[in-house]
């Protein structure tokens, strides 16, 4: 077919038979290295933030071929000033250029547990990393937490945000500090480098880890976090294939 969906002259068009369709589907999945056709359990609008971010990365790759390096820099600078997270930044683009694969992970904790008054500032996130294929090395990983700009009255306040990693099998589930950051209430969008933590996850595949964020508001009580689907926290990891994948003969 050409651009106008007109069949080219001389092109023999015929409908595929059922077994041919099945063979063709298998062949395409095999080329893509997928064991079977993905069957995602999607509930509409539930985990939109990660797909939006990934779509942005995809568009970055697509545009990369067309743009010159200088043009790219301009584009990212304008993106940073005109749009809110979780859009990909120039740093992500650098990771992206080096990566063979990028995976986003949705937060598996849907509802906050009832926490004691002492722990009301705590929030727990869980990511299932068991889907990472063997032989993939993590070159970068980020925990992306959406933070909205607070109202004008609190603009000059600061927040202290601490991120811990939690070993589930540890007897007292003592969290290990990963990062601590003081930020202005007016700031939007947060990215935490969890490359080292992610590599620990991958090296200890049998151990289940969780991620916990604790925020202390310096000027009053805790702020409500965004509930919109496009503002859900998620994790993104960049991979480099460390071994040669050999396609099985069929």
């Amino acid at each position, binding site marked *: *077919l050409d651009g106008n969906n007109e069949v*080219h002259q*001389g*092109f*023999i068009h*015929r*409908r*595929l038979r059922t077994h041919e*369709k099945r063979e*063709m*589907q298998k062949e*395409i999945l095999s*080329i*893509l*290295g*997928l064991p079977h*056709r*993905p*069957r*995602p*359990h*999607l509930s*509409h609008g539930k*985990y*939109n933030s*990660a*797909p*939006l971010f*990934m*779509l942005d*990365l*995809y568009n970055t*790759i*697509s545009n990369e071929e067309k743009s010159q390096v200088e043009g790219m820099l301009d584009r990212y600078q304008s993106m940073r000033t005109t749009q809110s997270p979780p859009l990909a930044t120039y740093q992500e683009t650098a990771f992206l250029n080096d*990566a*063979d*694969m*990028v*995976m*986003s*992970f*949705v937060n598996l904790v849907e509802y906050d547990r009832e926490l004691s008054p002492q722990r009301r500032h705590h929030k727990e996130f869980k990511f*299932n990393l068991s*889907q990472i294929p063997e032989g993939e090395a993590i070159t970068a990983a980020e925990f992306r937490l959406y933070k909205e700009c607070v109202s004008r009255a609190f603009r000059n306040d600061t927040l202290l945000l601490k991120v811990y990693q939690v070993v589930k099998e540890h007897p007292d589930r003592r969290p290990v500090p990963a990062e601590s950051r003081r930020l202005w209430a007016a700031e939007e969008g947060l990215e935490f480098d969890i490359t080292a933590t992610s590599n620990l996850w991958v090296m200890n595949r049998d151990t289940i880890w969780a991620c916990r964020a604790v925020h202390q508001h310096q000027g009053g009580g805790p702020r409500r976090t965004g509930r919109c689907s496009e503002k859900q926290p998620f994790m993104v990891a960049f991979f480099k294939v460390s071994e040669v994948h050999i396609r099985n003969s069929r």
Partner: protein
Amino acid sequence: STGRKSRQQNRNRSTQPQEGSRLGPAEYNSSDQKTACRRHELYVSFRELGWQEVYFLHFLHVFLSGLDHRPEGYAANYCDGECSFPLNAHMNATNHAIVQTLVHLMNPENVPKPCCAPTKLHAISVLYFDDNSNVILKKYKNMVVRACGCH
């Protein structure tokens, strides 16, 4: 199947100068130009494959925006055609192809002609959901045929 059929047809024809020769286009007849090694387009219909629910980029667009503009299919490229003397007619003929042609001319029964194959390949990126609703962006090297030539 279309490619295989046309290739068989092409092999039955006598070898003639190919597309892209130093000779002017008027010096070739149109049927020879059609048989020369070059890039062709093959339209893969997702609908005919039974993949109406495409899991790649456009599916994400549909999922995110609710707009119904998923692709009907994908225009892929492949190489097909004759690689015959003079090989300089083929702009992308390799040195190996020249040697292969000479050996073929000396021993046409046992040594085949050079193959019409990709000379320039590009990467492709695919975006899809996995079974856990995580999104994966994967780069595949050497997946898109940009140019064909004789090897």
